[in-house]
Every structure is written in structure tokens, then in C-alpha cells.
């Protein structure tokens, strides 16, 4: 499990909140990779896009369509926020798949900050845009009157569990995938089953490539779903 270990970048062994660690390094690399893709990739602005520009355009239109389809047309002003979250998580996940790399999104501390930011944004936005009628989200007016207080308690609980499940889903998936790969790798010590171990690692690696993309997508689309609740609490 030492692949998830956090240690200071410039020696020493005390970790303060401001100490540059390997998490800081890999988050910076993820940010730089995203910036490189979008700034350098689209720098030439050719009519017929090259490979980098093609990827950048696909990502842009993909996230834009996702925001419009899920959260509605007036959510487009939050498109930069969703785009930032999506590209950062995607880059972090894929950088973690490089052998010897470090997955910053496998730490709950990293994902919890992003999920809490989404949660606070949605809560503040809901009350600023709708006032007290945002509380109508918890008062299910389509249900029978007797059931409504019960449903309100359940809705309230599920609302406050959101940042937890939002963050643990991403961190847990990343950590679980890398743990499974390292468990298969330890089977390689036994000569008899080592070919099976190699096949298992290759299969799990391919599965992880899929999971990394899907988890970034799920994080972004859940952000859109929560934003829709804030923008249109009555639908």
C-alpha cells in the first residue's frame, strides 16, 4: 500500500498543511497537463483540427452538452466550473495509471475538498436564487400529506450525505482499482501462477482505463445534477 503514501517532496519527515508533498507535485502536473492540452492544443486554431486540437474540442463539446442536457440552458454559466473539475479529475486519474505515478484523486482529502466545494456552491446558490423556497426541495409536494414529513427527513439526510458519497465514490474507486492491481502483482511472486498474474494485471489495467474515464464523467455529471437542484428546485 506504499503507493498511496504521502511524503514531503524536499526531505524531512514532518507534514504540515503547507509542506509541498508528492500529492502537491502530481496535482500540479495534472493542472499543467490540462493547461498544455487546451492552450497548446488549440494555439494554432486550424480549421481541420490536429490530434491535440481534436481531443480538446471533443472534451469541450462533451462537457458542454453534458451541462446543457443535465442542468439546463441557464446552467451554462457554470460550465467553466464543471469543465475544470472534469479535466482535473480526468488528468489526475490517468496520470495515476502511469507505472510509478501517484493518484492524487485516490485520497479522500483531495476529493472531499472538491465535493465540499460543489456542496457549498449548490447550497448557497439555491438559497440566493430561490430564497426560502429552496427548502421546497425537501417538501415533496407530489406525495400524500401524511408521508411528507417522513420523506422530508429522508430527503434532508440524503442531501447531507451527498458530499460524502460524492467524494468517497471517486477516491474509493481509484484506491480500489490500484489495490486490486497491486494484489495481482503480489501473485507474481509465485512462479506457478505468475502467467495468470500478468494476464490479470493486463485485464485490470484495461478495466482501470475505463473506470478512470467513467469516474471523472460521473463526478462531473453529479455536479450537474446537484446544480439543477439549485437552479430549478421545482420540476
Amino acid at each position: 500500500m506504499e503507493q498511496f503514501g504521502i511524503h514531503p517532496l524536499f526531505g524531512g519527515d514532518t507534514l504540515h498543511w503547507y509542506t509541498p508533498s508528492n500529492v502537491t507535485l502530481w496535482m500540479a502536473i495534472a493542472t499543467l497537463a490540462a493547461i498544455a492540452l487546451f492552450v497548446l492544443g488549440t494555439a494554432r486554431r486550424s480549421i481541420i483540427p490536429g490530434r491535440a486540437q481534436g481531443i480538446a474540442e471533443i472534451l469541450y463539446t462533451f462537457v458542454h452538452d453534458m451541462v446543457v442536457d443535465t442542468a439546463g440552458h441557464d446552467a451554462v454559466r457554470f460550465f467553466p466550473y464543471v469543465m475544470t473539475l472534469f479535466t482535473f479529475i480526468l488528468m489526475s486519474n490517468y496520470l495515476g495509471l502511469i507505472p510509478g505515478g501517484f493518484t492524487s484523486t485516490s485520497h479522500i482529502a483531495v476529493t472531499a475538498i472538491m465535493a465540499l466545494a460543489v456542496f457549498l456552491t449548490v447550497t448557497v446558490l439555491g438559497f440566493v436564487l430561490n430564497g426560502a423556497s429552496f427548502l421546497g426541495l425537501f417538501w415533496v409536494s407530489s406525495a400524500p400529506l401524511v408521508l411528507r414529513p417522513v420523506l422530508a427527513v429522508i430527503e434532508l439526510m440524503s442531501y447531507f450525505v451527498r458530499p460524502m458519497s460524492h467524494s468517497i465514490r471517486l477516491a474509493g474507486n481509484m484506491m480500489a482499482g490500484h489495490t486490486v492491481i497491486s494484489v495481482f502483482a503480489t501473485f507474481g511472486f509465485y512462479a506457478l501462477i505468475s502467467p495468470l498474474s500478468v494476464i490479470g494485471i493486463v485485464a485490470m489495467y484495461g478495466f482501470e482505463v475505463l473506470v478512470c474515464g467513467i469516474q471523472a464523467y460521473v463526478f462531473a455529471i453529479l455536479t450537474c445534477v446537484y446544480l439543477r437542484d439549485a437552479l430549478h428546485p421545482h420540476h
Partner: protein
Amino acid sequence: MSGNIVNMGAYIGAGLACIGMGCAAIGVGNVAGNFLAGALRNPSAAPGQTPMLFIGIAFAEAFGIFSFLVALLLMFVLKA
């Protein structure tokens, strides 16, 4: 054979928590299977509902991840 009875309980609990991961697998299969059944009946409506498929899978999967987390906590953090 020696050890701490608290450790034994933690490891048994971690194993029991893994049942939850299997149940989450049933849930994810349920979501994906029902989506496929619906998509085969009306293939033209399927692409528009793909985001709903992933949202459903994510919600079903979250509880499996929770039980995985409980197992990890029992094995590495709460161990006596």
C-alpha cells in the same frame, strides 16, 4: 496461534463487509440489465438516456464502495 481477539473481530468484520460489495454488484447489474432491456425495445431513445445509466450505476456502486471502505478501515485503521 496467538493474537488479539479484537483483531480477529476486525478481520471477520472486514470479511463480512465484503458481502456488501457483492450486493452492490447485483445492483449495478440490475441497472445495466434493465437499461439494456429497455434500449433493445426502443433503440432510438437509448442514446439520450445513457447519462441516466451512468448516474444509476454511480448511485448503486456508491454503497459497494462504502462497504469496501468499511473493510479497509477495519483492517488498517481500527485494528488494535
